[in-house]
């Protein structure tokens, strides 16, 4: 993946089709200003997000990973995000054990109407990743 701009980092976002992807769309339609470091991957439900997706992204070049789904009790499939919550919490606690800063991974809930909340989430998360800097910097510099 070519570097778009020297300042830009790689953030992968897994968004559920029914709420958060709609929320991101609402933010776009409302012309809210957002950072462009995030690459969004649309998944049917946050329950589709295997914790391995997050690990694979982090090991293969992402500097941060964001997962967002419907608010608890609002899942389109009624219980997908309940399972997701347990899995993602487990991963959130495992990452620091491996030596990966848990701040590089964040999961949250954004509904389709919450364009402003989405804007806030992306802005804050991108800011945090920029504070942490690139995850793979050392490896890319060494020949």
């Amino acid at each position, binding site marked *: 993946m070519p570097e778009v701009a020297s300042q830009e980092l790689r953030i992968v976002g897994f968004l559920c089709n029914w709420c958060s992807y709609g929320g991101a769309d609402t933010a776009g339609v409302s012309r809210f200003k957002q950072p462009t470091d995030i690459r969004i991957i649309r998944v049917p439900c946050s329950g589709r997000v295997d*914790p391995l997706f997050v690990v694979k992204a982090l090991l293969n070049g992402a500097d941060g990973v964001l997962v967002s789904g419907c608010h608890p009790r609002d899942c389109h499939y009624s219980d997908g995000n309940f399972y997701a919550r347990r899995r993602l919490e487990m991963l959130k606690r495992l990452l620091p054990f491996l030596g990966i800063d848990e701040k590089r991974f964040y999961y949250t809930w954004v509904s389709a109407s919450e364009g402003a909340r989405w804007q806030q989430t992306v802005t804050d998360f991108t800011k945090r990743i920029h504070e942490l800097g690139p995850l793979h910097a050392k490896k890319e510099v060494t020949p």
Partner: protein
Amino acid sequence: MISQKLQEAIAGVSDKVDVVIAYQQGFDKLHATPCFVKKPEEIKNLIWNPLCVHNLTSYLPSLKKKKVAVLAKGCDSRTIAQFVQEGLINRDNVTIIGIPCSGVISVNKVLQAINHEPVEDVSFDEKGNITVKTSKGEKTMSLQDVSPDKCKTCRYPTPLIYDVLAGDPIVSDKSFDDAYADIKDFEGKTLEERLKYWEGEFDRCIRCYACRNACPMCVCQDSCIAETRDPHWISQRATLSEKFMFHMIHALHLAGRCVECGECERVCPMNIPVNKLKRKINLDMKELYNYEPGVNPEDKPPMFTFNVDEVTIKEHKI
């Protein structure tokens, strides 16, 4: 080679089942190997001593439709309870011959102590010592010095579920905190130290997949995503990131399921602490859901279920 009580226990069930899974002597006196007993006269070949390290219950899911009797130590019995929780075996088809176990031996540690010389004879005495005879002489070691790490903090020396118990129950004086003290210790290190530790450990991995093959809870068998081409999770390259990813697959697929039988670490030819990641997750499962794998057959594994209101999971803030 086996006690009267165990012999009677096996003879008592052998006519009601298709096969009894137990231990016999392997290629030398230091190695035991699993044995499938189908005829009563084969019982005399069986052995039981601290060299019987294997978790024989690993065979149960593949023998789901047969009537099987299996020898189970305390740690092995947790595997069976976990199988029952996940519906991987039919409990009615399994007869568990429980054996209270005061600790097994790490064959690797013995081999290291005798410098990998060919073994001529092995004997045990009442004081808890093992004597290994090689062409270079004899060496006597205390069982405690050559026991695997899992036995040092064992909380379940007596099987948790069994149909027949061959021996007197043993009570452990170890607590939950004892068993996870090393995990808590490791969490005291800095992020950089931890990352460096794991990179060093996983870099040695030769991707033989022995840990996965020996794992009783790795039930995907030929569909393991570490080897499938579709989806192609990891490639055949021998790079650190591929090795790291393989161990993450193993750990995350065992989240809240690992019964800590230690088979993965026993079979690892590179001495990688494979079980450590799973034990870290188990520690979290206890904290979050008060769940311990393989302890109660009636439980539900935490990743198979949920609460609408998770009181223990706090919402994260950026």
